[in-house]
């Protein structure tokens, strides 16, 4: 079998990107496989190609709903229509329709939350699963970024589904995380592929500034200077909104992007950015995954993220086309308070746990054990969504509230310890002497191989390389619906 031929016939690519072929061959040979491939390297091809030519169903566990939807649509675009996403976007009737016809699908994307549902597991059990793909596999480890407790049950679920072959994919995984992945997914004898995650075309810069005010000034200055398209990461939705407005007033085609914007609008923003109608996105960490934009020229962190894994993922969205790009982090000493708040904000504190138990006990008294009636219409004030979800997860089999409080508290304590450690490592990196790239790669347990010319602010970077080259386009002009409609339909007005 000629893999290149299949690649061309089904995906219209002439050649594999680094790493893809090795991973695909390993999968085709029936090995459990763990692959660490850099972002933007075409990870999904590693299961899509085997899935298309092999018998049976490919089950893909993916944590991000929007990403899932994107991949479903992309597969459909390539002519594979037997593909579906099982997630909370599906209405009850749609879900039933899919489950009744589950054997018709060749690719099934599923969120880890959905795998906790017995009806869905029952349906999946009826399938012959040829490959059990765990995307963003680092979510399984407390030491990976974006740890998701629901991932912890994937090993048991794999077993329940008859121990299908596993492919675990991730873009960042240190030894500790890889070991966790293998242990949790019960990979005993498997193949491991680790490819260099370095992105030599991205210059890494950290600018230290005195306070938030100075940062603000510098940000506005930078955005005016730099050649777009660009992304700026903020730690809060409100700031993303505020700055998007500021930049619009400066005449830039900017927009904000975060989780409070509904799905339809988010897709529109992604597409506008993709087609160059927007040149700047002011985002929270909700932005990125599934945005296949190749030519992002700069990425600015207005606030540093909470760990180096997140940082690396986020700057990795720049320069997918291999051209020169720059990542700039603006740092001031008081950022540490914002970061601390980000860390603690995801986890419920003692008071919130108490409040939750009180609420839960009331509900149980009213409704009995019936699980479906417990969910409140809206997350009660005083809780974030992440906090609430976590509490709900831990209370699934709540019958002893003391036991629950104890378990929840010890979980929170452990998470806080780990997150503080990861934050310390990020802060250490910011202040460390020596080449930033080398230090970053060292953190990911990778030696630096080649000398990079525009490397980092320590090695020296000429920032003017990244300055504006084209004249800025203005916002589009007046509205004329007849003209616009004629254009859409390619008709004469």
């Amino acid at each position: 079998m000629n893999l290149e031929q299949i690649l061309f016939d089904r995906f219209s690519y002439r050649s594999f990107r680094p790493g893809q072929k090795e991973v695909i061959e390993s999968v085709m040979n029936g090995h459990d496989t763990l692959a660490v491939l850099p972002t933007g390297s075409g990870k999904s091809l590693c299961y899509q190609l085997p899935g298309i030519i092999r018998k049976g169903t490919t089950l893909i566990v993916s944590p991000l709903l929007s990403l899932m939807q994107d991949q479903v649509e992309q597969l459909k675009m390539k002519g594979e229509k037997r593909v579906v996403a099982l997630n909370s976007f599906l209405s009850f009737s749609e879900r039933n329709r899919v489950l009744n016809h589950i054997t018709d699908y060749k690719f099934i994307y599923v969120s880890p939350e959905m795998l906790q549902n017995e009806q869905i597991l029952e349906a999946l059990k009826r399938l012959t699963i040829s490959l059990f793909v765990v995307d963003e596999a680092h979510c399984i480890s407390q030491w990976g970024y974006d740890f998701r407790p629901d991932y912890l049950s994937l090993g048991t679920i794999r077993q329940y589904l008859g121990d299908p072959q596993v492919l675990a994919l991730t873009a960042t995984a240190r030894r500790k995380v890889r070991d966790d992945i293998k242990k949790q997914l019960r990979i005993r004898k498997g193949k491991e592929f680790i490819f260099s995650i370095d992105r030599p075309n991205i210059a890494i810069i950290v600018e230290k500034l005195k306070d938030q005010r100075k940062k603000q000034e510098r940000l506005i200055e930078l955005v005016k200077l730099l050649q777009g398209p660009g992304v700026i990461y903020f730690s809060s939705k409100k700031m993303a909104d505020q700055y998007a407005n500021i930049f619009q007033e400066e005449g830039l085609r900017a927009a904000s992007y975060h989780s409070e914007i509904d799905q339809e609008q988010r897709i529109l923003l992604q597409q506008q950015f993709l087609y160059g109608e927007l040149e700047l996105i002011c985002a929270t960490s909700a932005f990125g995954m599934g945005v296949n934009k190749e030519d992002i020229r700069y990425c600015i962190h207005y606030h540093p993220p909470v760990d180096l894994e997140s940082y690396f993922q986020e700057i990795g969205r720049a320069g997918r086309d291999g051209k020169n790009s720059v990542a700039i982090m603006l740092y001031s000493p008081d950022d540490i308070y914002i970061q601390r708040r980000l860390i603690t904000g995801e986890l419920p504190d003692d008071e919130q746990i108490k409040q939750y138990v009180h609420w839960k006990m009331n509900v149980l008294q009213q409704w009995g054990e019936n699980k479906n009636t417990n969910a409140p219409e809206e997350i009660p004030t005083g809780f974030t969504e992440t906090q609430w979800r976590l509490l709900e997860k831990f209370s699934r089999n709540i019958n002893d509230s003391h036991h629950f409080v104890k378990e929840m508290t010890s979980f929170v304590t452990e998470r806080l310890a780990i997150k503080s450690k990861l934050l310390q490592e990020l802060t250490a990196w910011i202040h460390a002497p020596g080449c930033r790239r080398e230090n970053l790669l060292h953190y990911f347990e990778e030696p630096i191989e080649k000398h990079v010319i525009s490397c980092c602010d320590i090695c020296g970077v000429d920032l003017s390389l990244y300055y504006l080259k084209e004249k800025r386009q203005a916002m589009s002009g007046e509205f004329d619906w007849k003209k616009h409609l004629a254009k859409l339909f390619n008709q004469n007005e």
Partner: protein
Amino acid sequence: MFVETVVLACIDRFQGERTVNAIYYLLAGKMSAQTIQDVAWFELRPYFNLFPGLRKSEFAEILQFLHKQKWITLDRKIARITEQGENICRIEFQRFPLPPHFNGYRFHKIDEKFWSRLSLIVQIFSHWAHDETGFLPVERDPDTQWMVKKWLFALGKTRSRQELIKDCYKELISLLKMVNHEGLNPNLLVYRLSGYRKPGLTFRQLAERLDIDEPYIRVLFRAILHGMILLIRKYPKQFPLFASLVRDLQQPLKLTRSTARTYDLLKAGKNVTEIARLRQLKPSTIQDHVVEIALMDPDFSIDPFVSSPLQEKIRNVLQNTRSRKLRLIKGYVPEADYFSIRLVLASRFKSPEKNT
């Protein structure tokens, strides 16, 4: 300011006879008998489901704001409008009136479905028109994708792609011209559509470009959809493509199970007393059911239950008093029983009447 203005108007209508929660459910479009009854009784039809995504926390903030401005008074869960509030409300509505055709009750969820279909077919036709078949749909709802696929398949048997594109374009243009003629701005719809290499604008972007409140933009946008659906249904021969696109978009009747059973018996020709006996329920319970039916079903006539002259009389009273306390109303028409008054109140919701 638009949401704030609407909240003021609702507080004004309720006259302190309902809690603020009732206003929230009304604006968020909760399809419950209680909310629908409030809508009918207090003539709040134009406001129902104006802001479907409104969060409780946002609503609470708005109340706080209105209170702080001294436009309302708040006592526990009861709000009342102040004189200042009335002025603001009037001025703001002059600047940003409720758009014509908007009917959040009648098109509950239907407008959403219609928009997903419309935006998907335009995206498909736009790509076809530019000889491009593969693209990422903006519309991700599987039901919509499935429906549109079937729709296109059926139409494909009758004409070529080019003809289909042209027909759709023509229908859309003349629909929008008619909508435009009735005072709605088609730009708000057309620029939201996505096509070949042209993603639509978000509501926020439209709001910024036109310098209008985003919630108001959303309402104007939905009013265009409502206007379009009305026109399509009125002139199906003129818009055959769109007529086939909206044909199955019907509001399911949302009745409680017991009421549905009563309705079946009513349709079978039984009267209230007979149904009560048959079902071994109290006549007053059956009366409650009839009121619920009158509220929920726009095609239900109350004529068999209340004589026309009495209906007329009760309506007159309702027009002249703002209170919705049944006892008070009965004071003005002693010959009417509570059942008749409630039925007239319920049916008022459907009769075409002035917007605000």
